[in-house]
């Protein structure tokens, strides 16, 4: 027996059995603190700031798709009230103008979507409208990609995407907001 004990003392090994416990502890800590938050949103490129007032460019009214959102979050599209759910299809119709309607845009290249809101408009309403306008363009791009290349817009190469975007440029111009209903 004594001899065995001496042997035991010789192999001085660190007990690795508790390693799992330690790892577990750390694991639980990280599990709790983890927020796998992926931040997503609508990516926008703001226009550059210039101190000079913008030039007064007269455009043909048929090429302007004016969208107004007032303090009550109501929508006025080309001087007509509209429900939010109709906005996307109407925007697409305006941009593409498949039937060459003289009241809609000359061509997608000349079409301008103008968005104007009040300072009292709720952010939610604003973003929903913006989202619909964006969605209209995205749907047009997708349809074009299907027609031209038979695949989704996202699967197209950079050059193909650029070609589509050139023919259907995304122009959402934001006018300075009015201030009827702002809160302090």
């Amino acid at each position, binding site marked *: 027996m004594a001899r065995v004990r001496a042997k035991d003392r010789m192999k001085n090994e660190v007990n690795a059995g508790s390693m*799992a416990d330690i790892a577990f502890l750390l*694991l639980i800590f990280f599990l709790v603190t*983890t927020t796998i*938050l992926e931040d997503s949103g*609508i990516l*926008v490129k*703001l226009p550059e700031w210039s101190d000079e007032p913008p030039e007064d460019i007269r455009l043909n009214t048929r090429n302007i798709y004016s969208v107004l959102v007032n303090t009550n979050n109501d929508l006025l599209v080309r001087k007509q009230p509209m429900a939010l759910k109709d906005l996307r299809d109407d925007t697409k119709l305006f941009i593409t103008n498949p039937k060459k309607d003289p009241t809609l845009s000359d061509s997608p290249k000349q079409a301008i979507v103008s968005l104007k809101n009040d300072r009292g408009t709720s952010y939610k309403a604003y973003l929903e409208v913006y989202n619909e306008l964006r969605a209209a363009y995205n749907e047009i791009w997708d349809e074009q990609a299907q027609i031209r290349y038979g695949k989704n817009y996202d699967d197209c190469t950079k050059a193909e995407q650029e070609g589509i975007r050139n023919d259907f440029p995304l122009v959402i111009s934001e006018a300075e*907001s009015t201030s009827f209903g702002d*809160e302090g």
Partner: protein
Amino acid sequence: MSKFNKGKQKEDPEVSTASLPDIIFMLLFFFMVVTVMRESELKIKVTTPQATELTKLQEKSLVNYIHIGRPTKNYQAKFGTSPKIQLGDKISDIEEIPLFLENHKASVPEKLQFKITTSLKVDSDVTMGIVTDVKEKLRKSGQLKVNYSAKKRTGDL
């Protein structure tokens, strides 16, 4: 040694737990890598609206966050109930945005600075007035890439 013992040894084949630490470590490393420590406590309530046309933001180091919302209950006595801006961990004035952007920019390698995106985390209930002011400030500071943070919409409009 005896007959009995030999019989017993055959009976309990144990599952080896030697690889357990390795498995746990693997999980541990996974969570360590994906973990983002919450840097700042929000003093304002921010519930982002829902949208469909979303882009995912990659590379957290190239993103700075501007929160806009109404102060939470605990801070209402101090800051009131009208929408406020939070930069980092404190409620700030709109005039502090350029400095905030500059500070973030300094932490990014020069080559990648053109990729910096500002993520606007804005509460649904906020009115556009303050958002417009922030946008104007961003434009004046030359920070043009902006992301309106939003959640994926699941239902219909």
